[in-house]
């Protein structure tokens, strides 16, 4: 009759008289590990959403920076321009990915919009404040956004809020028709520049509406050229009063500290959404911390259970050792057994996290976010890392416990190496 050595091992080494304890410890490990991995997966997803630019949940954070206007500025003796120190500090600030100054018109300009056939009707005239900024910071650059020296038509980007203001306030009050963005882009208007030699007229054409920048923007090449031609002669570069900056959404706290330290101001509302995202991340980190505590507690219970199992099998283990089984082999049995249990816990946790992440991703996609299904490879790697550490702790604990068995301690208490 053949006797299975493996089944004998099980009988002799795993005297599991309290399977409920083992089950609870494994369940605790499962829930804890799933919490850690789910929180990690969500933190990674949130960070990815924050970092993936305009298609992300929050997208890149563009803010317009300027110095706080002081009383002296009101009186006109200090224009709150950004000095070289401010610009150097902005360039060196790690929370700011990149920045570009706004260029303002240095000449008088007005817009004239004529109603009626061939301009024979009424005309609406208003002073213009023109600005330009590097195209890389614009959200509506298209094929209409072109200007070359000699062109008599200048594309203009208006703030989207202007459109809303016209459609929902001005037009109803004056009995004028509401217009869509597409229709608005068909209109042209005259831009009258007060040149030193007399008025110069070019045609303005709406190239788009910006949700990002509240200013009337013209191409930078046009403004540089126009300032040079029509503005007062300047020996040095014109002062910079404000600039646009792309802020790292994950470093908003540092960015806010930077603003306060340098006395800068910005559009607070833009930052609010991103602060909420930071809050979400913090909440997830707290969840992960709870998961770690739960894993630690459950694993302690598992380790205690294992030590108890070795203790319960003490007589059998000692006899096995006296019969010639090596300590290393007995240790391997326990570690292998526990490793299999922990591996099952990891597999179940990953399955759980995968299912949860899939559901969340679907909900996020329904809400219009660019959320992907599937776990980030870091998550299973993290799980494997945790399990390897736990298995190492098991091996160490079992080794220590086994060394108290079937080894002669010398009169001074030392054990063989």
């Amino acid at each position: 009759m053949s006797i299975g050595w493996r089944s004998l091992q099980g009988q002799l080494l795993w005297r599991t008289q309290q399977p409920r304890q083992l089950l609870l410890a494994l369940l605790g490990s499962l829930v804890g590990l799933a919490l850690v991995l789910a929180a990690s997966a969500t933190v990674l997803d949130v960070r990815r959403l924050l970092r993936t630019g305009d298609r992300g949940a929050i997208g890149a954070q563009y803010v317009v920076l300027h110095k706080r206007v002081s009383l002296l500025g009101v009186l006109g003796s200090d224009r709150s321009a950004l000095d070289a120190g401010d610009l150097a500090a902005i360039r060196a600030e790690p929370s700011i990915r990149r920045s570009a100054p706004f260029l303002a018109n240095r000449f008088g300009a007005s817009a004239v919009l004529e109603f009626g056939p061939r301009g024979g009707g009424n005309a609406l005239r208003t002073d213009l404040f023109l600005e330009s900024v590097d195209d890389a910071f614009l959200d509506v650059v298209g094929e209409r956004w072109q200007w070359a020296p000699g062109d008599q038509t200048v594309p203009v980007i208006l703030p989207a809020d202007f459109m809303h203001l016209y459609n929902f306030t001005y037009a109803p009050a004056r009995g004028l028709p509401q217009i869509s963005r597409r229709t608005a882009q068909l209109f042209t208007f005259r831009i009258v520049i007060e040149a030193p030699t007399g008025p110069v007229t070019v045609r303005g054409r709406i190239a788009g509406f910006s949700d990002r920048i509240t200013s009337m923007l013209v191409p930078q090449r046009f403004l540089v050229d126009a300032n040079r031609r029509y503005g007062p002669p300047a020996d040095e570069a014109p002062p910079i009063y404000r600039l646009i900056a792309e802020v790292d959404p994950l470093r908003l706290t540092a960015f806010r500290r930077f603003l306060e330290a340098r006395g800068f101001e910005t559009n607070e509302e833009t930052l609010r959404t991103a602060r909420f995202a930071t809050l979400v991340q913090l909440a997830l980190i707290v969840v992960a911390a709870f998961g770690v505590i739960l894993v630690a507690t459950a694993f302690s219970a598992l380790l205690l259970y294992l030590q108890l199992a070795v203790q319960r099998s003490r007589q059998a283990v000692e006899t096995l050792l006296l019969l010639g089984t090596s300590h290393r082999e007995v240790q391997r049995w326990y570690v292998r057994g526990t490793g299999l249990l922990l591996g099952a816990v990891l597999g179940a946790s990953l399955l759980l996290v995968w299912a949860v992440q899939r559901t969340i991703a679907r909900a996020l996609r329904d809400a219009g976010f660019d959320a992907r299904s599937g776990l980030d490879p870091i998550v299973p790697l993290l799980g494997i890392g945790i399990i390897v550490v736990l298995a190492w702790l098991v091996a160490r604990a079992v080794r220590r416990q086994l060394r108290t068995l079937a080894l002669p301690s010398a009169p001074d208490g030392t054990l063989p190496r």
Partner: protein
Amino acid sequence: MALAPGTSLQIRAASGAGKSTLVAFLAGLRGDYDGEILVDGRALTTFDVEAWAQWRRQAVSIVFQDLRLFPELSARAQVALVREVSGGAASELEARAAALGITAHLDRPVRQLSLGQMQRVAILRALARPYRWLLLDEPFSHLDRTNAAAAWELIHADATAKGAGLLVTGLDPQDFLRTTQTLTL
């Protein structure tokens, strides 16, 4: 005191004289002694964990006074287990069991056996593996004279066949015990 391969030594002493303690020293259960115990010229105190495993697996076979059987396993399973650890011929099991008079009990968990039957299972297990030294700590304490003599014959024949050194301890003189040396304490 020395024990050479192929020779046998019986130690007779009253309870508490240290017979089982000596076996515990040789088995590696205790190390709290002065003096030296040398095996092939090497002191037991220099053995590391792996050397102890090697010594127990290949060199020494012991019948402990408290037997150290696995209560839930049958005699056959106990023998299979030591063979798995150390190797050894399976074919002699039935013959040895017959010589010891426990053939009928080979497949019963040893916890269901009497002390005398357990003692014979422990002897059966000790003989079922290769060894160069056979240590028997009061191996016949629960056996009647007839069974003890039969067991001794089997033990002596096996140790002789293996060219092993044999150490047997006991309380009183036993007329069937023929050893090359006797030490009375």
